[in-house]
């Protein structure tokens, strides 16, 4: 990676605490224009918190976050709960905060597989439909970077495949960078330029090929991820090669995640 390219967004040794709990420790990362970076990690590893910190929603207790001035971010949150007291159609939602024309709105909906559904009420959408609408809205802002928090969790498998094809297309057309969170290992490996393994700290990072052979990654996700149902278990006994990290979390994370 060449150093002088100005990064879109950069975290410099950030720590995030909720009360006395340190959720994220000493995170440094950058996203360059046009690259697809995926953050992987078990539940509770601080993935969403990291994304929210980069967006400025959660303050960092230490370190600093730099965004390119005027950076256009297309954010797709993991979930969105609109109060049922607010009547709002999909079409109206797409015009927040910047108004778009009917033609632009319809085109964005068509791209995300929601053609002709602009008149639907937001509160009646299913989880998958909501994610498509959120993505359509994010694309309408002509983002320089898309930040996606588990964007495929409400989609079925064909929907998921189409989703990643669309992301790839958008990157190709607009040179937008993509920073996404996932715990879907297979697709991630195929779709990303760079993978960051997170578990309260950055365990390892690099190209999917490099990461998938790293001992830290194997410790986190186990080896049997090819199976239809991979139960992964992670313990904090993996070694760190990259300097003086001393993490002795007093608790043992044991996850049994059925991965379909």
């Amino acid at each position: 990676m060449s150093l002088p390219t100005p990064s879109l967004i950069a975290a410099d040794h950030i720590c995030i605490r909720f009360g006395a709990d340190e959720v994220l420790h000493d995170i440094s990362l950058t996203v360059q224009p046009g690259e697809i970076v995926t953050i992987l990690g078990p539940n509770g590893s601080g993935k969403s918190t990291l994304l929210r910190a980069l967006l400025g929603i959660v303050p960092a207790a230490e370190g600093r976050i730099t965004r390119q001035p005027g950076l256009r971010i297309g954010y797709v949150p993991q979930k969105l709960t609109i109060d049922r007291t607010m009547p709002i159609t999909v079409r109206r939602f797409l015009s927040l905060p910047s108004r778009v024309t009917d033609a632009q709105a319809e085109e964005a909906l068509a791209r995300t597989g929601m053609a002709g559904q602009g008149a639907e009420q937001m509160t009646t959408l299913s989880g998958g439909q909501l994610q498509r609408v959120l993505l359509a809205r994010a694309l309408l802002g002509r983002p320089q970077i898309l930040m996606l928090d588990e964007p495929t969790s409400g989609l079925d498998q064909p929907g998921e495949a189409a989703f990643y094809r669309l992301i790839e297309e958008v990157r190709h057309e607009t040179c937008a960078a993509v920073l996404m969170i996932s715990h879907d290992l297979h697709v991630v490996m195929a779709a990303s330029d760079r993978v960051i393994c997170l578990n309260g700290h950055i365990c390892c990072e690099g190209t999917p090929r490099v990461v998938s052979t790293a001992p830290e990654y194997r410790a986190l996700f186990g080896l049997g991820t090819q199976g239809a149902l991979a139960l992964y278990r992670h313990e904090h006994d993996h070694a760190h090669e990259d300097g003086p990290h001393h993490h002795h979390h007093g608790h043992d994370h044991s996850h049994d995640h059925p991965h379909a």
Partner: protein
Amino acid sequence: MGRTTITTGTTTAMIIPMLDDFLVRAGLAAVGLSLATGPLGSFVIWRRMAYFGDATAHAAVLGVALALATDLPIGLGTLTVALAMAVTVAGLSARGWAMDTTLGVLAHSALAFGLVAVSFFPNVRTDLSAYLFGDILAVSRGDLALVWLGALAVLALLAWRWQRLLTATVSEDLAHAAGIRPDRERLVLVIALALVVAVALKIVGALLIAAMLIIPAAAARSFARTPEAMAALAIVIGAASGLGGLALSLWQDTPTGPSIIVVAAGLFALASLRQQN
């Protein structure tokens, strides 16, 4: 050209004597007020701030007491205290205090302090009930001008920030990502709320302001498909309640402020019936 001037002249000539009629002034005051309470009330509902409106209104009574004690204009006293209250509550809730508890403490304390403070001025005690229940029939030309100016100011403020307010209301996270600061938008609403309370105090009174904010907007909900439609319809329902309440009050010789709310509640009940069908 000449003809237009004549028409305008005639209209003005017709309106000015009409303003002499206390009923016309009362009707115009009710319509003016609903211009602000419709859209603002919609936000109060969407953001679940109903109790917040109540608290600000109760605090305004303390403002009345302070204004009477210091011989300052009542409007200034209520506006200052309502604003101070609103900003305090917003600040406390941002620090993670339980909203309902904080509001319960502050709202009722402010009301009680106001009532106790007023008891030191025996000559104003009768005045105060007008501020608790409002007296729309006593609205002067000056009051009318204040109501319309205040309502139009609130409307202009909301229109100016509309897209940002709406984004922050739909999702604070999406607002953040778009470079909008949700805390600033919350402050805009809080200021608008204090303004509305200050101008509405004379008309519906401190105890009924929250009703005027919430009931028309809630009735509008079942007919609306977009936020804008709900806000506009809330204005119409609010104005209809105001005029209907005046009529009811004339016809049955009932207190006017509560009559307005009774009509609004009736419209809400009708709207709820429609929703069930």
